[in-house]
């Protein structure tokens, strides 16, 4: 019974997500994407567009991602020091 309820819930959720994804319109303007794809090599000197975007156009994303990893590890070390034994 519980299993059937969970399966029903998951199927419903999946239908909702698929419906929302179908209605979703690409939010970023098309010109921006075209600009990135056309001119990333002369802008940044990279031949891999992904590297060009995460190290140049969207550098703040990379910075805060690195910060999140550092914060997570610092927090883990801090909290384990209390209860953990050497």
């Amino acid at each position, binding site marked *: 019974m519980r299993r059937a309820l969970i399966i029903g819930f998951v199927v419903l959720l999946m239908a909702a997500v698929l419906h929302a994804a179908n209605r979703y319109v690409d939010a970023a303007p098309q010109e921006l994407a075209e600009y990135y794809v056309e001119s990333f090599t002369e802008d940044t000197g990279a031949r891999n567009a992904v*590297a060009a975007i995460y190290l140049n156009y969207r550098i703040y994303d990379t910075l805060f991602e690195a910060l999140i990893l550092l914060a997570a590890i610092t927090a883990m070390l801090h909290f*384990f020091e209390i209860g953990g034994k050497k």
Partner: protein
Amino acid sequence: MTEERSIVSVVTGLLYPYVVLFGIYIIINGHHTPGGGFQGGAILAALFIGRYIVDPTNDLPITRAHLIEKAIFAAIVIVPAGFILTVAAQRVPALHEPYLVAMNLLIGVKVAIGLTIVVFRYAFYEE
């Protein structure tokens, strides 16, 4: 049990240098081919954790490794702040490629150290 372990450890020992080279290749060449600092660093971390599975000896100085990671994060903030976010990026286009390689290297080392610390801390200290 010991038989299985010795087979696994021999194979891991054979693969070890090649996987290290592959991880470094993915980091260094991240701006030309698919890959980059995060993926290469994760490969290096997976290698260190796999070595723990084969031979569980605790030889990672966690406090020092964490200190190194903090220093690398400082570098990750300082390098773009001194290059991409200033006028230097437009003035000296020749520096773009060294900048990408340096950033990929820094991110790769940071991710490798961070993930290895997490697993080693979990495996040896938490009780």
